[in-house]
Protein backbone atom coordinates (compact mmCIF):
# COMPACT_ATOMS: atom_id res chain seq x y z
CA UNK A 1 0.00 0.00 0.00
CA UNK A 2 1.19 3.46 -0.80
CA UNK A 3 1.14 5.84 2.11
CA UNK A 4 -0.42 8.68 0.19
CA UNK A 5 -4.07 8.98 -0.77
CA UNK A 6 -3.16 10.89 -3.90
CA UNK A 7 -3.86 9.36 -7.30
CA UNK A 8 -0.74 9.45 -9.41
CA UNK A 9 0.54 8.09 -12.67
CA UNK A 10 -0.81 7.18 -16.06
CA UNK A 11 -1.30 3.44 -16.55
CA UNK A 12 -1.65 1.68 -19.85
CA UNK A 13 -2.93 -1.80 -20.46
CA UNK A 14 -3.71 -3.89 -23.48
CA UNK A 15 -3.78 -7.65 -23.87
CA UNK A 16 -2.36 -7.01 -27.33
CA UNK A 17 1.39 -6.19 -27.26
CA UNK A 18 1.06 -4.08 -30.42
CA UNK A 19 -1.72 -1.95 -28.95
CA UNK A 20 0.18 -1.65 -25.65
CA UNK A 21 3.06 0.01 -27.53
CA UNK A 22 0.66 2.46 -29.16
CA UNK A 23 -0.88 3.28 -25.79
CA UNK A 24 2.57 3.94 -24.30
CA UNK A 25 3.14 6.58 -26.95
CA UNK A 26 -0.10 8.47 -26.18
CA UNK A 27 0.35 7.73 -22.47
CA UNK A 28 3.79 9.35 -22.57
CA UNK A 29 2.32 12.54 -24.02
CA UNK A 30 -0.41 12.67 -21.37
CA UNK A 31 1.90 11.83 -18.46
CA UNK A 32 4.28 14.64 -19.44
CA UNK A 33 1.38 17.11 -19.56
CA UNK A 34 0.08 15.87 -16.23
CA UNK A 35 3.57 15.94 -14.70
CA UNK A 36 3.46 12.33 -13.60
CA UNK A 37 5.02 8.97 -14.42
CA UNK A 38 3.96 6.45 -17.05
CA UNK A 39 3.35 2.87 -16.01
CA UNK A 40 2.36 -0.23 -17.94
CA UNK A 41 0.62 -3.30 -16.64
CA UNK A 42 1.90 -6.69 -17.82
CA UNK A 43 -0.12 -9.86 -17.37
CA UNK A 44 1.05 -13.29 -18.45
CA UNK A 45 2.51 -16.68 -17.85
CA UNK A 46 5.99 -15.24 -18.17
CA UNK A 47 6.26 -11.49 -17.97
CA UNK A 48 10.03 -10.86 -17.88
CA UNK A 49 10.44 -10.29 -21.63
CA UNK A 50 7.16 -8.40 -21.80
CA UNK A 51 8.25 -6.06 -19.00
CA UNK A 52 11.57 -5.27 -20.70
CA UNK A 53 9.74 -4.59 -23.92
CA UNK A 54 7.28 -2.21 -22.22
CA UNK A 55 10.16 -0.26 -20.67
CA UNK A 56 11.95 -0.10 -24.02
CA UNK A 57 8.80 1.39 -25.56
CA UNK A 58 8.45 4.10 -22.94
CA UNK A 59 7.17 2.84 -19.58
CA UNK A 60 8.86 4.33 -16.49
CA UNK A 61 7.45 1.52 -14.43
CA UNK A 62 5.88 -1.86 -15.11
CA UNK A 63 3.47 -3.56 -12.74
CA UNK A 64 3.94 -7.19 -13.69
CA UNK A 65 1.77 -10.10 -12.67
CA UNK A 66 3.12 -13.51 -13.55
CA UNK A 67 0.48 -16.19 -13.32
CA UNK A 68 -0.49 -19.10 -15.59
CA UNK A 69 -4.16 -18.15 -15.33
CA UNK A 70 -3.38 -14.82 -17.01
CA UNK A 71 -1.93 -16.43 -20.12
CA UNK A 72 -4.88 -15.39 -22.27
CA UNK A 73 -7.46 -12.71 -21.76
CA UNK A 74 -10.39 -13.54 -19.51
CA UNK A 75 -12.42 -10.57 -18.39
CA UNK A 76 -13.16 -11.77 -14.86
CA UNK A 77 -9.57 -12.66 -14.04
CA UNK A 78 -8.09 -9.57 -15.68
CA UNK A 79 -10.56 -7.22 -14.01
CA UNK A 80 -10.01 -8.84 -10.60
CA UNK A 81 -6.26 -8.35 -10.87
CA UNK A 82 -6.38 -4.89 -12.38
CA UNK A 83 -8.98 -3.59 -9.91
CA UNK A 84 -6.97 -4.72 -6.90
CA UNK A 85 -3.80 -3.19 -8.33
CA UNK A 86 -5.58 0.10 -9.03
CA UNK A 87 -6.89 0.16 -5.45
CA UNK A 88 -3.39 -0.46 -4.09
CA UNK A 89 -1.31 1.81 -6.34
CA UNK A 90 -3.96 4.44 -7.08
CA UNK A 91 -3.28 5.59 -10.65
CA UNK A 92 -4.71 8.91 -11.81
CA UNK A 93 -5.44 7.69 -15.34
CA UNK A 94 -5.93 4.22 -16.80
CA UNK A 95 -5.72 3.85 -20.59
CA UNK A 96 -7.01 0.61 -22.08
CA UNK A 97 -6.75 -0.45 -25.74
CA UNK A 98 -10.21 -0.47 -27.34
CA UNK A 99 -10.17 -4.03 -28.58
CA UNK A 100 -13.40 -5.92 -28.00
CA UNK A 101 -11.79 -7.49 -24.93
CA UNK A 102 -10.41 -4.12 -23.79
CA UNK A 103 -13.86 -2.54 -23.95
CA UNK A 104 -15.52 -5.11 -21.72
CA UNK A 105 -12.58 -4.98 -19.34
CA UNK A 106 -12.68 -1.18 -19.06
CA UNK A 107 -16.40 -1.14 -18.24
CA UNK A 108 -16.25 -3.95 -15.69
CA UNK A 109 -13.14 -2.45 -14.07
CA UNK A 110 -14.60 1.05 -13.88
CA UNK A 111 -17.78 -0.23 -12.25
CA UNK A 112 -15.76 -2.23 -9.70
CA UNK A 113 -13.78 0.91 -8.88
CA UNK A 114 -16.95 3.05 -8.95
CA UNK A 115 -15.34 5.42 -11.39
CA UNK A 116 -16.19 6.99 -14.73
CA UNK A 117 -15.04 5.65 -18.05
CA UNK A 118 -15.10 7.06 -21.57
CA UNK A 119 -14.89 4.57 -24.41
CA UNK A 120 -14.28 5.11 -28.11
CA UNK A 121 -12.70 8.52 -27.63
CA UNK A 122 -11.90 10.40 -30.83
CA UNK A 123 -9.63 12.92 -29.10
CA UNK A 124 -7.78 12.84 -25.81
CA UNK A 125 -5.84 15.65 -24.20
CA UNK A 126 -5.05 17.25 -20.85
CA UNK A 127 -7.14 20.17 -19.66
CA UNK A 128 -4.43 22.61 -18.50
CA UNK A 129 -6.63 24.28 -15.87
CA UNK A 130 -8.29 21.27 -14.34
CA UNK A 131 -5.18 19.08 -14.74
CA UNK A 132 -7.27 16.15 -15.85
CA UNK A 133 -7.83 14.31 -19.10
CA UNK A 134 -10.45 15.76 -21.41
CA UNK A 135 -11.89 13.75 -24.29
CA UNK A 136 -14.15 14.04 -27.31
CA UNK A 137 -16.57 11.28 -28.22
CA UNK A 138 -18.88 11.06 -31.19
CA UNK A 139 -22.48 10.26 -30.34
CA UNK A 140 -25.85 10.15 -32.09
CA UNK A 141 -24.63 8.54 -35.27
CA UNK A 142 -21.51 10.68 -35.36
CA UNK A 143 -23.47 13.93 -35.65
CA UNK A 144 -22.50 15.31 -32.26
CA UNK A 145 -19.16 15.58 -30.52
CA UNK A 146 -19.46 15.38 -26.77
CA UNK A 147 -16.58 16.68 -24.66
CA UNK A 148 -16.22 15.04 -21.26
CA UNK A 149 -14.08 14.85 -18.16
CA UNK A 150 -14.11 12.26 -15.40
CA UNK A 151 -14.13 13.83 -11.92
CA UNK A 152 -13.77 10.43 -10.18
CA UNK A 153 -10.47 8.53 -9.92
CA UNK A 154 -8.92 6.76 -11.65
CA UNK A 155 -10.08 8.25 -14.92
CA UNK A 156 -10.57 5.27 -17.24
CA UNK A 157 -10.43 5.61 -21.02
CA UNK A 158 -10.27 3.28 -23.97
CA UNK A 159 -8.13 4.31 -26.91
CA UNK A 160 -8.57 3.16 -30.48
CA UNK A 161 -5.97 0.82 -31.88
CA UNK A 162 -3.85 1.62 -34.90
CA UNK A 163 -3.97 5.38 -34.37
CA UNK A 164 -0.94 6.26 -32.26
CA UNK A 165 2.53 5.72 -33.62
CA UNK A 166 4.62 3.77 -31.07
CA UNK A 167 7.78 5.45 -29.80
CA UNK A 168 10.93 3.95 -31.22
CA UNK A 169 12.24 1.03 -29.22
CA UNK A 170 15.14 1.92 -26.95
CA UNK A 171 16.63 -1.20 -25.34
CA UNK A 172 18.93 1.01 -23.23
CA UNK A 173 15.98 2.70 -21.49
CA UNK A 174 15.64 1.82 -17.84
CA UNK A 175 12.52 1.42 -15.80
CA UNK A 176 11.39 -0.13 -12.58
CA UNK A 177 9.64 -3.49 -12.72
CA UNK A 178 7.30 -4.05 -9.79
CA UNK A 179 6.21 -7.66 -9.33
CA UNK A 180 2.69 -7.82 -7.96
CA UNK A 181 0.54 -10.73 -6.78
CA UNK A 182 -3.05 -9.60 -6.72
CA UNK A 183 -5.89 -12.02 -6.02
CA UNK A 184 -6.94 -13.33 -9.40
CA UNK A 185 -9.61 -15.79 -8.34
CA UNK A 186 -11.45 -18.12 -10.65
CA UNK A 187 -13.49 -17.24 -13.68
CA UNK A 188 -17.19 -18.16 -13.58
CA UNK A 189 -16.96 -18.36 -17.38
CA UNK A 190 -14.87 -21.21 -18.81
CA UNK A 191 -13.29 -20.98 -22.23
CA UNK A 192 -13.90 -24.26 -24.05
CA UNK A 193 -12.55 -23.44 -27.47
CA UNK A 194 -10.89 -20.73 -29.52
CA UNK A 195 -11.01 -20.81 -33.29
CA UNK A 196 -8.77 -18.27 -35.00
CA UNK A 197 -10.53 -16.38 -37.77
CA UNK A 198 -9.35 -17.04 -41.27
CA UNK A 199 -8.45 -13.88 -43.07
CA UNK A 200 -7.68 -13.88 -46.75
CA UNK A 201 -4.69 -11.56 -46.91
CA UNK A 202 -4.40 -8.42 -44.81
CA UNK A 203 -7.23 -7.54 -42.46
CA UNK A 204 -8.95 -4.28 -43.09
CA UNK A 205 -8.13 -2.93 -39.62
CA UNK A 206 -4.43 -3.58 -40.23
CA UNK A 207 -4.34 -2.27 -43.80
CA UNK A 208 -2.21 0.76 -44.70
CA UNK A 209 -4.31 1.48 -47.77
CA UNK A 210 -8.03 0.80 -48.15
CA UNK A 211 -10.03 1.21 -51.33
CA UNK A 212 -13.69 1.21 -50.38
CA UNK A 213 -16.85 1.33 -52.44
CA UNK A 214 -20.49 2.12 -51.89
CA UNK A 215 -23.68 2.17 -53.84
CA UNK A 216 -22.02 4.12 -56.65
CA UNK A 217 -20.87 0.72 -57.85
CA UNK A 218 -23.81 -0.55 -59.80
CA UNK A 219 -23.36 -4.30 -59.76
CA UNK A 220 -21.41 -7.01 -58.00
CA UNK A 221 -19.65 -7.94 -61.24
CA UNK A 222 -18.00 -4.49 -61.22
CA UNK A 223 -16.07 -5.09 -57.98
CA UNK A 224 -12.87 -5.94 -59.98
CA UNK A 225 -12.63 -2.24 -60.93
CA UNK A 226 -12.12 -1.43 -57.25
CA UNK A 227 -9.98 -4.51 -56.65
CA UNK A 228 -7.67 -3.49 -59.44
CA UNK A 229 -6.95 -0.12 -57.81
CA UNK A 230 -6.49 -1.82 -54.42
CA UNK A 231 -3.99 -4.23 -55.97
CA UNK A 232 -2.05 -1.40 -57.58
CA UNK A 233 -1.56 0.37 -54.24
CA UNK A 234 -1.14 -2.85 -52.19
CA UNK A 235 -4.38 -2.05 -50.45
CA UNK A 236 -7.38 -3.90 -49.14
CA UNK A 237 -10.94 -3.62 -50.44
CA UNK A 238 -13.62 -2.34 -48.09
CA UNK A 239 -17.19 -1.17 -48.47
CA UNK A 240 -20.02 0.79 -46.91
CA UNK A 241 -22.69 -0.74 -44.69
CA UNK A 242 -25.43 -1.29 -47.32
CA UNK A 243 -23.01 -3.23 -49.53
CA UNK A 244 -22.32 -5.78 -46.79
CA UNK A 245 -25.54 -5.75 -44.79
CA UNK A 246 -28.22 -5.27 -47.42
CA UNK A 247 -26.64 -6.43 -50.69
CA UNK A 248 -24.25 -8.91 -49.02
CA UNK A 249 -21.64 -8.44 -51.77
CA UNK A 250 -18.81 -8.52 -49.19
CA UNK A 251 -18.57 -10.12 -45.72
CA UNK A 252 -19.66 -7.95 -42.76
CA UNK A 253 -16.08 -7.99 -41.45
CA UNK A 254 -15.21 -5.78 -44.44
CA UNK A 255 -17.64 -2.91 -44.06
CA UNK A 256 -16.35 0.32 -42.65
CA UNK A 257 -18.41 2.48 -40.33
CA UNK A 258 -19.46 3.28 -36.81
CA UNK A 259 -21.18 -0.07 -36.43
CA UNK A 260 -18.67 -1.91 -38.61
CA UNK A 261 -14.89 -1.71 -38.78
CA UNK A 262 -13.23 1.44 -37.56
CA UNK A 263 -10.12 1.82 -39.64
CA UNK A 264 -6.95 3.87 -39.45
CA UNK A 265 -5.08 3.45 -42.73
CA UNK A 266 -2.56 5.90 -44.15
CA UNK A 267 -4.76 6.26 -47.20
CA UNK A 268 -8.49 5.68 -47.59
CA UNK A 269 -10.05 5.92 -51.02
CA UNK A 270 -13.86 6.08 -51.00
CA UNK A 271 -15.37 5.24 -54.39
CA UNK A 272 -19.04 5.96 -54.93
CA UNK A 273 -19.73 6.39 -51.22
CA UNK A 274 -22.10 9.26 -50.42
CA UNK A 275 -20.72 9.76 -46.92
CA UNK A 276 -23.38 8.84 -44.39
CA UNK A 277 -22.19 9.96 -40.98
CA UNK A 278 -22.12 6.23 -40.06
CA UNK A 279 -19.41 5.72 -42.62
CA UNK A 280 -17.49 8.91 -41.85
CA UNK A 281 -17.22 7.92 -38.20
CA UNK A 282 -15.48 4.71 -39.20
CA UNK A 283 -12.76 6.56 -41.13
CA UNK A 284 -12.07 9.49 -38.84
CA UNK A 285 -8.68 8.05 -37.91
CA UNK A 286 -7.53 7.64 -41.49
CA UNK A 287 -4.54 9.86 -42.26
CA UNK A 288 -5.61 10.88 -45.76
CA UNK A 289 -9.09 10.45 -47.21
CA UNK A 290 -9.71 10.53 -50.97
CA UNK A 291 -13.22 10.44 -52.41
CA UNK A 292 -14.56 9.83 -55.90
CA UNK A 293 -18.23 10.60 -56.44
CA UNK A 294 -20.44 11.78 -59.30
CA UNK A 295 -22.34 14.14 -57.02
CA UNK A 296 -20.28 17.23 -56.17
CA UNK A 297 -22.66 17.89 -53.25
CA UNK A 298 -22.23 14.44 -51.69
CA UNK A 299 -21.48 14.80 -47.95
CA UNK A 300 -18.35 12.67 -48.34
CA UNK A 301 -16.53 15.67 -49.84
CA UNK A 302 -16.91 17.53 -46.51
CA UNK A 303 -14.80 14.82 -44.90
CA UNK A 304 -12.26 14.40 -47.65
CA UNK A 305 -8.71 15.63 -48.12
CA UNK A 306 -8.71 15.15 -51.89
CA UNK A 307 -11.85 14.79 -53.94
CA UNK A 308 -12.57 14.02 -57.54
CA UNK A 309 -16.03 14.66 -58.94
CA UNK A 310 -16.64 12.10 -61.64
CA UNK A 311 -17.82 8.70 -62.67
CA UNK A 312 -16.00 6.07 -60.64
CA UNK A 313 -16.04 3.74 -63.65
CA UNK A 314 -13.71 6.21 -65.38
CA UNK A 315 -11.89 7.82 -62.44
CA UNK A 316 -10.95 4.69 -60.47
CA UNK A 317 -9.14 3.01 -63.40
CA UNK A 318 -7.48 6.36 -64.13
CA UNK A 319 -6.13 6.56 -60.58
CA UNK A 320 -4.82 2.98 -60.86
CA UNK A 321 -3.18 3.90 -64.15
CA UNK A 322 -1.58 7.02 -62.63
CA UNK A 323 -0.18 4.96 -59.75
CA UNK A 324 1.29 2.48 -62.22
CA UNK A 325 2.90 5.31 -64.17
CA UNK A 326 4.46 6.70 -61.01
CA UNK A 327 5.85 3.36 -59.90
CA UNK A 328 7.27 2.21 -63.21
CA UNK A 329 7.88 5.57 -64.79
CA UNK A 330 10.85 7.87 -65.16
CA UNK A 331 10.83 8.80 -61.49
Amino acid at each position, binding site marked *: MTSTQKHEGVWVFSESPTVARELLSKGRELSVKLGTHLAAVAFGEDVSEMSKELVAFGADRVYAVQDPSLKTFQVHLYSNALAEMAQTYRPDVVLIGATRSGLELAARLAERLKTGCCTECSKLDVDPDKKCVIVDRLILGGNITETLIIPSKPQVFTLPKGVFQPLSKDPARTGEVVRVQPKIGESPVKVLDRKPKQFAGVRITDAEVIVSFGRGLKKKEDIPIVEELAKTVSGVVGCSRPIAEDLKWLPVDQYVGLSGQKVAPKLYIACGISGQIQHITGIQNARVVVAVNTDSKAPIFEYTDYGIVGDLYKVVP*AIAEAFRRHSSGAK
Partner: protein
Amino acid sequence: MRNMPNMIVLAKQVFYTQDLRIDRTTKKLKTEGVARVISESDKNAIEEAVRLKEKHGGKITVLTMGPPEAKEALREAIAMGADEGYMLVGPEFENSDAHATAVSLAAGIKKIGQFDMILCGETSEDQYSFQVGPRTAEILNLPQITYAVKITLQDAKVLVDRNLEDCYETVESKLPVFVTVSREINEPRLPTLMAIMAASKKPMTAWTAKNIGLQPGELGRQGSLTEPVRSAVATGERKRVMMEGEPSEAAEKLVTTLVGEGVVKVT
Protein backbone atom coordinates in the same frame (compact mmCIF):
# COMPACT_ATOMS: atom_id res chain seq x y z
CA MET B 1 -32.32 -29.09 -14.40
CA ARG B 2 -34.09 -25.95 -15.36
CA ASN B 3 -36.04 -26.25 -18.53
CA MET B 4 -37.92 -23.02 -18.47
CA PRO B 5 -35.53 -20.10 -18.43
CA ASN B 6 -36.58 -16.84 -16.92
CA MET B 7 -35.09 -14.13 -19.11
CA ILE B 8 -34.82 -10.39 -18.69
CA VAL B 9 -33.92 -8.37 -21.78
CA LEU B 10 -32.63 -4.80 -21.45
CA ALA B 11 -33.64 -2.71 -24.44
CA LYS B 12 -33.05 0.95 -25.17
CA GLN B 13 -35.10 3.14 -27.43
CA VAL B 14 -33.00 5.39 -29.64
CA PHE B 15 -33.47 7.73 -32.56
CA TYR B 16 -32.97 5.95 -35.85
CA THR B 17 -29.40 7.21 -36.15
CA GLN B 18 -29.14 6.90 -39.91
CA ASP B 19 -31.88 9.51 -40.28
CA LEU B 20 -30.35 11.97 -37.85
CA ARG B 21 -29.11 15.11 -39.56
CA ILE B 22 -27.72 18.47 -38.59
CA ASP B 23 -30.00 21.34 -39.56
CA ARG B 24 -27.76 23.50 -41.75
CA THR B 25 -29.37 26.77 -40.66
CA THR B 26 -29.73 26.25 -36.91
CA LYS B 27 -26.60 24.07 -36.68
CA LYS B 28 -28.54 21.83 -34.34
CA LEU B 29 -29.42 18.18 -34.45
CA LYS B 30 -32.78 17.65 -36.11
CA THR B 31 -34.76 14.99 -34.28
CA GLU B 32 -38.18 16.08 -35.49
CA GLY B 33 -39.73 13.38 -37.61
CA VAL B 34 -36.92 10.93 -36.87
CA ALA B 35 -38.29 7.55 -35.85
CA ARG B 36 -37.63 6.17 -32.39
CA VAL B 37 -36.61 2.53 -32.62
CA ILE B 38 -35.20 -0.20 -30.42
CA SER B 39 -31.41 0.02 -30.59
CA GLU B 40 -30.27 -2.58 -33.10
CA SER B 41 -28.34 -5.11 -31.04
CA ASP B 42 -30.93 -4.83 -28.24
CA LYS B 43 -33.44 -5.95 -30.82
CA ASN B 44 -31.22 -8.94 -31.56
CA ALA B 45 -31.24 -9.68 -27.81
CA ILE B 46 -35.04 -9.69 -27.77
CA GLU B 47 -35.11 -11.94 -30.83
CA GLU B 48 -32.66 -14.36 -29.22
CA ALA B 49 -34.73 -14.53 -26.04
CA VAL B 50 -37.83 -15.26 -28.11
CA ARG B 51 -36.00 -18.06 -29.94
CA LEU B 52 -34.81 -19.54 -26.64
CA LYS B 53 -38.36 -19.36 -25.33
CA GLU B 54 -39.68 -21.07 -28.46
CA LYS B 55 -37.27 -23.91 -27.76
CA HIS B 56 -37.31 -24.18 -23.99
CA GLY B 57 -40.37 -22.30 -22.82
CA GLY B 58 -39.93 -19.86 -19.98
CA LYS B 59 -40.65 -16.20 -19.64
CA ILE B 60 -39.31 -12.99 -21.16
CA THR B 61 -39.46 -9.70 -19.31
CA VAL B 62 -38.27 -6.57 -21.07
CA LEU B 63 -36.86 -3.65 -19.12
CA THR B 64 -36.24 -0.23 -20.63
CA MET B 65 -35.31 3.19 -19.33
CA GLY B 66 -36.20 6.35 -21.16
CA PRO B 67 -38.77 8.98 -21.98
CA PRO B 68 -42.52 8.17 -21.99
CA GLU B 69 -42.20 7.36 -25.72
CA ALA B 70 -40.10 4.32 -24.75
CA LYS B 71 -43.41 2.60 -24.08
CA GLU B 72 -43.48 1.97 -27.83
CA ALA B 73 -40.25 -0.02 -27.52
CA LEU B 74 -41.85 -2.23 -24.89
CA ARG B 75 -44.89 -2.71 -27.07
CA GLU B 76 -42.70 -3.74 -29.99
CA ALA B 77 -40.71 -6.16 -27.82
CA ILE B 78 -43.93 -7.75 -26.61
CA ALA B 79 -45.19 -7.95 -30.18
CA MET B 80 -41.99 -9.82 -31.03
CA GLY B 81 -42.75 -12.36 -28.31
CA ALA B 82 -41.84 -10.97 -24.88
CA ASP B 83 -44.33 -11.57 -22.06
CA GLU B 84 -44.25 -8.34 -20.12
CA GLY B 85 -42.54 -5.00 -19.97
CA TYR B 86 -41.25 -2.59 -17.36
CA MET B 87 -39.99 0.90 -17.92
CA LEU B 88 -37.95 3.22 -15.74
CA VAL B 89 -39.36 6.62 -16.50
CA GLY B 90 -39.18 10.08 -15.02
CA PRO B 91 -36.98 13.19 -15.09
CA GLU B 92 -34.75 11.75 -12.37
CA PHE B 93 -33.39 9.17 -14.86
CA GLU B 94 -32.44 11.80 -17.45
CA ASN B 95 -28.78 12.50 -18.23
CA SER B 96 -27.61 9.29 -16.63
CA ASP B 97 -24.18 8.17 -17.85
CA ALA B 98 -23.24 4.50 -18.31
CA HIS B 99 -22.69 4.06 -14.56
CA ALA B 100 -25.95 5.72 -13.46
CA THR B 101 -27.82 3.81 -16.17
CA ALA B 102 -26.37 0.52 -14.96
CA VAL B 103 -27.27 1.39 -11.35
CA SER B 104 -30.86 2.12 -12.42
CA LEU B 105 -31.21 -1.01 -14.57
CA ALA B 106 -29.70 -3.20 -11.84
CA ALA B 107 -32.24 -1.79 -9.35
CA GLY B 108 -35.04 -2.50 -11.85
CA ILE B 109 -33.77 -6.05 -12.35
CA LYS B 110 -33.68 -6.65 -8.59
CA LYS B 111 -37.24 -5.40 -8.33
CA ILE B 112 -38.36 -7.75 -11.13
CA GLY B 113 -36.73 -10.50 -9.10
CA GLN B 114 -36.12 -13.96 -10.48
CA PHE B 115 -34.03 -14.56 -13.59
CA ASP B 116 -31.72 -17.11 -15.14
CA MET B 117 -30.34 -14.95 -17.88
CA ILE B 118 -30.12 -11.26 -18.64
CA LEU B 119 -29.63 -10.28 -22.25
CA CYS B 120 -28.91 -6.98 -23.96
CA GLY B 121 -27.17 -5.65 -27.05
CA GLU B 122 -23.40 -5.19 -27.05
CA THR B 123 -23.79 -1.42 -27.34
CA SER B 124 -26.43 1.21 -28.01
CA GLU B 125 -26.69 2.84 -31.42
CA ASP B 126 -26.75 6.38 -30.04
CA GLN B 127 -24.06 6.34 -27.36
CA TYR B 128 -21.78 3.56 -28.55
CA SER B 129 -20.19 3.15 -25.13
CA PHE B 130 -20.18 -0.68 -24.81
CA GLN B 131 -20.36 -0.10 -21.05
CA VAL B 132 -23.89 -0.62 -19.78
CA GLY B 133 -23.89 -4.43 -20.13
CA PRO B 134 -20.63 -5.14 -18.28
CA ARG B 135 -21.35 -2.45 -15.66
CA THR B 136 -24.80 -3.90 -14.91
CA ALA B 137 -23.29 -7.40 -14.72
CA GLU B 138 -20.70 -6.13 -12.24
CA ILE B 139 -23.30 -4.47 -9.98
CA LEU B 140 -25.34 -7.68 -9.95
CA ASN B 141 -22.15 -9.72 -9.45
CA LEU B 142 -23.01 -11.90 -12.45
CA PRO B 143 -20.73 -13.71 -14.89
CA GLN B 144 -20.55 -11.67 -18.09
CA ILE B 145 -20.37 -13.06 -21.59
CA THR B 146 -20.08 -10.36 -24.25
CA TYR B 147 -20.45 -10.33 -28.05
CA ALA B 148 -22.54 -13.50 -28.28
CA VAL B 149 -23.21 -14.88 -31.77
CA LYS B 150 -24.77 -18.14 -30.61
CA ILE B 151 -26.48 -19.10 -27.35
CA THR B 152 -27.31 -22.67 -26.36
CA LEU B 153 -29.03 -23.59 -23.12
CA GLN B 154 -28.03 -26.94 -21.73
CA ASP B 155 -29.30 -28.10 -18.35
CA ALA B 156 -28.45 -25.34 -15.90
CA LYS B 157 -25.63 -24.07 -18.12
CA VAL B 158 -25.27 -21.84 -21.11
CA LEU B 159 -22.86 -22.31 -24.01
CA VAL B 160 -22.03 -19.18 -25.96
CA ASP B 161 -20.02 -18.52 -29.11
CA ARG B 162 -18.41 -15.08 -29.04
CA ASN B 163 -17.11 -12.99 -31.90
CA LEU B 164 -13.75 -11.36 -31.12
CA GLU B 165 -11.31 -9.59 -33.45
CA ASP B 166 -9.05 -12.55 -34.12
CA CYS B 167 -11.13 -15.52 -33.13
CA TYR B 168 -14.41 -17.09 -32.28
CA GLU B 169 -14.51 -18.30 -28.71
CA THR B 170 -16.86 -20.87 -27.16
CA VAL B 171 -17.45 -20.36 -23.47
CA GLU B 172 -19.57 -21.95 -20.80
CA SER B 173 -21.17 -20.55 -17.69
CA LYS B 174 -23.61 -21.57 -15.02
CA LEU B 175 -26.87 -19.69 -14.69
CA PRO B 176 -27.67 -17.00 -13.82
CA VAL B 177 -25.58 -15.16 -16.37
CA PHE B 178 -25.41 -11.82 -18.16
CA VAL B 179 -25.02 -11.99 -21.95
CA THR B 180 -24.53 -9.19 -24.48
CA VAL B 181 -25.21 -10.06 -28.10
CA SER B 182 -23.73 -8.98 -31.44
CA ARG B 183 -25.88 -8.12 -34.40
CA GLU B 184 -24.86 -11.18 -36.38
CA ILE B 185 -26.51 -13.53 -33.86
CA ASN B 186 -29.85 -13.46 -35.70
CA GLU B 187 -32.25 -11.52 -37.94
CA PRO B 188 -34.90 -9.96 -35.70
CA ARG B 189 -38.46 -10.74 -36.80
CA LEU B 190 -40.86 -8.06 -37.91
CA PRO B 191 -43.92 -8.29 -35.71
CA THR B 192 -47.25 -8.32 -37.52
CA LEU B 193 -49.69 -5.48 -37.09
CA MET B 194 -51.99 -7.89 -35.26
CA ALA B 195 -49.22 -8.77 -32.82
CA ILE B 196 -48.54 -5.07 -32.23
CA MET B 197 -52.24 -4.45 -31.54
CA ALA B 198 -52.40 -7.43 -29.22
CA ALA B 199 -49.24 -6.24 -27.44
CA SER B 200 -51.01 -3.21 -26.02
CA LYS B 201 -53.15 -5.57 -23.95
CA LYS B 202 -50.12 -7.20 -22.32
CA PRO B 203 -48.94 -5.91 -18.95
CA MET B 204 -46.62 -2.90 -18.94
CA THR B 205 -45.50 -1.24 -15.74
CA ALA B 206 -43.82 2.13 -15.26
CA TRP B 207 -41.51 2.66 -12.32
CA THR B 208 -40.04 5.85 -10.93
CA ALA B 209 -36.70 5.94 -9.11
CA LYS B 210 -38.57 5.80 -5.82
CA ASN B 211 -40.38 2.63 -6.93
CA ILE B 212 -37.07 0.83 -7.38
CA GLY B 213 -35.57 2.19 -4.17
CA LEU B 214 -33.04 4.64 -5.60
CA GLN B 215 -32.08 7.93 -3.98
CA PRO B 216 -31.77 11.10 -6.10
CA GLY B 217 -27.96 11.14 -5.76
CA GLU B 218 -27.63 7.67 -7.28
CA LEU B 219 -28.93 8.36 -10.76
CA GLY B 220 -29.29 11.02 -13.43
CA ARG B 221 -26.66 13.72 -13.70
CA GLN B 222 -25.98 13.63 -9.95
CA GLY B 223 -25.30 9.92 -9.93
CA SER B 224 -23.09 10.01 -13.02
CA LEU B 225 -19.33 9.62 -12.84
CA THR B 226 -18.54 11.40 -16.11
CA GLU B 227 -19.11 15.11 -16.60
CA PRO B 228 -20.08 16.58 -19.96
CA VAL B 229 -18.20 19.81 -20.59
CA ARG B 230 -19.89 20.71 -23.88
CA SER B 231 -21.35 19.20 -26.97
CA ALA B 232 -21.16 20.50 -30.50
CA VAL B 233 -21.95 19.58 -34.06
CA ALA B 234 -19.23 17.22 -35.23
CA THR B 235 -17.06 18.69 -37.97
CA GLY B 236 -14.53 17.11 -40.23
CA GLU B 237 -10.99 18.40 -40.13
CA ARG B 238 -10.01 17.52 -43.65
CA LYS B 239 -8.34 19.58 -46.40
CA ARG B 240 -11.26 19.41 -48.84
CA VAL B 241 -9.14 19.99 -51.94
CA MET B 242 -10.85 19.14 -55.22
CA MET B 243 -8.82 17.73 -58.09
CA GLU B 244 -10.23 19.19 -61.27
CA GLY B 245 -10.06 18.08 -64.86
CA GLU B 246 -10.73 15.03 -66.99
CA PRO B 247 -10.45 11.69 -65.15
CA SER B 248 -6.86 11.06 -66.23
CA GLU B 249 -5.82 14.60 -65.44
CA ALA B 250 -7.49 14.65 -62.00
CA ALA B 251 -6.07 11.17 -61.24
CA GLU B 252 -2.57 12.35 -62.16
CA LYS B 253 -2.83 15.41 -59.89
CA LEU B 254 -4.10 13.22 -57.07
CA VAL B 255 -1.35 10.61 -57.36
CA THR B 256 1.37 13.24 -57.68
CA THR B 257 0.09 14.88 -54.48
CA LEU B 258 -0.17 11.59 -52.56
CA VAL B 259 3.30 10.49 -53.62
CA GLY B 260 4.66 13.96 -52.81
CA GLU B 261 3.19 13.83 -49.32
CA GLY B 262 4.68 10.39 -48.76
CA VAL B 263 1.24 8.88 -48.21
CA VAL B 264 2.05 6.10 -50.61
CA LYS B 265 5.41 4.77 -51.54
CA VAL B 266 6.00 3.86 -55.12
CA THR B 267 8.66 1.39 -55.96
